[in-house]
């Protein structure tokens, strides 16, 4: 049976009435019209659906809404503050680190999580952390460059 869940997303609280096993991805996209978070595989293999949950990257396609009580979710739409892009967003733009850009939301959210939790990651750290995100267009070298750049641009924690 559907139940009511209060979800804290991008600093706002949303009340949704869904099945307990409904994925956060489906709620974001179908109920809240937050379509910046993408479907790519439904099995946590591609990273297109990555969001931050309490500051850490999680695959929203595998996250049931019933597990989110008291937690804070940030999606790609919640990253910029008014006109001010998060340093990772800015670095992706500066490096042209995208082609079709369908993976970009997930890439950015994963990168923000990495930088949230680690000072000045090495290239090996970046590769290891980002290994779960697929860019089918093959912009990987530029994405690594963008993360390096954002890392040196100074910390801007997102929780």
């Amino acid at each position: 049976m559907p139940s009511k869940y209060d979800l804290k997303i991008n600093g706002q609280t949303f009340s949704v009435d869904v099945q307990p096993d409904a994925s956060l991805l489906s709620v974001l996209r179908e109920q809240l019209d937050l379509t910046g978070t993408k479907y790519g595989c439904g099995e946590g293999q591609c990273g297109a659906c990555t969001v931050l949950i309490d500051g850490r990257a999680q695959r929203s396609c595998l996250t049931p809404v019933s597990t989110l009580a008291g937690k804070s979710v940030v999606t790609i739409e919640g990253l910029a503050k008014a006109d001010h892009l998060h340093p990772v967003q800015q670095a992706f733009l500066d490096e042209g680190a995208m082609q079709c850009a369908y993976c970009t939301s997930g890439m950015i959210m994963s990168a923000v999580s990495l930088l949230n939790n680690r000072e000045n990651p090495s290239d090996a750290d970046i590769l290891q952390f980002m290994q779960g995100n697929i860019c089918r267009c093959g912009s990987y070298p530029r994405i690594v460059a963008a993360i390096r750049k954002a890392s040196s641009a100074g910390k801007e924690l997102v929780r």
Partner: protein
Amino acid sequence: MTRRSEFAEGLEPERYELHSPVSVIFESGRRDFFKFLGAGVFIACAATKTAAFQESGKNHRGSEDDLPREIDAWLHIGGNGEITVFTGKVEVGQNIRTSLSQAVAEELCVPIARVHLVMGDTQLVPFDMGTFGSRTTPVMNLQLRRVSAAARDVLLSLAAKQWNTDAAQLTAADGKILDPKSNRSATYAELVQGQRLTQLLPPEDPLIPAAQWKVAGQPVPKVDGRDFVTGKHRYPSDFKLPRMLYGKVVRPPSFGATLVSFDAQTAQQIPGVMVVRDGDFLAVAAPSTALAVKAAAAIQAEWKSVPQPSSKELFGYLKKNQIASEREPAYETGNVDKIFASSDRRLSGSFDIAYIAHAPLEPRAALAQWNGDQLTVWTGTQRPFGVRSELVTAFHLPEEKVRVLMPDMGSGYGGKHTGDAALEAARLARAANHPVKVVWTREEEFTWAYFRPAGVIEVSSALGADGKLTAWEFHNYNSGGAGIRTYYDVPNQRIQFHPVNSPLRQGSYRALAATANHFAREVHMDEVAASIKMDPLQFRLKNLKEERLRAVFEQGARQFGWDKPRQANHGFGMGGGYEKLGYIATFADVSLNPTTKTLKVERVLTAFDCGALVNPDGVRNQLIGANVMGIGGAIFEAIEFENGRILNNRFSKYRVPRFRDVPVMDALLIDRKDRPSVGAGEAPILGIAPAIANAIYALTGIPAHSLPMAPALSARGYQLS
């Protein structure tokens, strides 16, 4: 060899998806046929299929040689000075929204921020066959330059008339016409006053030469990049309408299976769920994806399967299942048989090419809405007009009743030429009397889309005492004819493509069969060079006259350090060629860990000449991306199938290149400002597989004759990562 575009000779044979009938012809063409039964609606139709061939793809209406000549078909200057440009080309990640905007900004002398492209909306843009074959830059970029230059001349004339002066005295800059003598100026908006520019393009094209470009030729950033890093951009799968339902197709358990019977009682009891059956098409629509999935799973369907071959027997199957009646005569020159009979320096090789999947990160998606008998579909496709034709055929509609819109989508790589999701969404929407969105799952994308054709390639050559090739025979079974002709100078040649009854649905893939044909040719070249202990670069240059191809090999080799001493346990390889009007040579450095017998691609460099660079940053992005994608097909990607099912239909089972698979990559762009600009999305993928294979051969002596290479190497005790 001739340098004529393949388009002049028709479409390549391996664009199978364009030569095939539309995937489903619906029986029910009329609204009054439907019965609405409250919450659960059930529609039954006769289960017969008519065969009709789609004319799209072969539609010569508005061919590249016959584009509209009216300026206003392509460009409009708004009352606010904003420039709206209309093109049937679509943005799929290749960054043409930016490069085409640059062309307009350059010739029209306006800031690029004022240029807005309407792309792929069949109601608003001139007919376009589709965004494939690397035709955007050589054709559309040039066309929009001509249009913009013509518009600029119209503006100059308007100002000259207004000021009663000679247009030759005036200049255009920054969206204004200026008269340097009198210091008068007028904005484009003031001159045009919202009127359409109905003038025709002049036969002569006074275009700005590439050497004088200020906006074109520059590494302009993606024009709407901010919308992509903020999640604001709406991809086809993101579109939503009021009252919209979510569709889900009940798929057969195997290819070729037909629907015998089904029971949808349980599914129809779910509130808001509607079930549609039309021939072998069985699907549901529901208020959410979750409910649609639940309803589809609740349908008990009985399917009749037919026997299917498996990937284990693939290559033998391809040789055994040729379609002799569709085989065209071989390309022949000289007398191959005579040379082979008399030569004692002969070498032969056979190559296997697996099926691979495009796996675009955004699966096929479509949102369909009916307004009376007017159908509007937003969908991810490289061929909006082709999809419109499919809808016209499938629903028995006049063309003017169908509008297809293509929002910038999550990539295609040649995989989104058909309208499968559009047909499904439209069929459901018609039955439901609601807008319906269909987004394929990853498993559907891996199963029901079409694949890059598998193939077998056989090469034989003969060599003279002077190290020059004397005879060349090349046969390609099934994979395709693109890039099949050799660019090396061989006096005696026989080259032939052999069509085959493919066990899987197959079609276009980035660079088509040029990847497979270059792989076989370039790997064979190294083996011949090795047989006479000649350096692979020297051997190529000895057999190659084409100046631009020599240039990419020679300049690339220099930058790569081909002649520099190699580290112990490192091998170098190269592969290159000519395709889609671009010249490319790729060099790879592969290392071997002798203890673990692990091979690793360490470094790759690609030299590329695509004429005058319109956007060097965009070309570099395409080039690196093509090499990354090419690594997948070269090393590990292969579709496995059995009994009409895809065995590896998920990313957890089908490996695609990831961050750690990427070697150090470099690009050498040769900016030929004296040559026309051509496409960069396809040719750069050609060199990586042979370059890696040749490096492995140099390092281990093992010939790598399969795409992908890793399985055969693994069988010989080597791991290739």
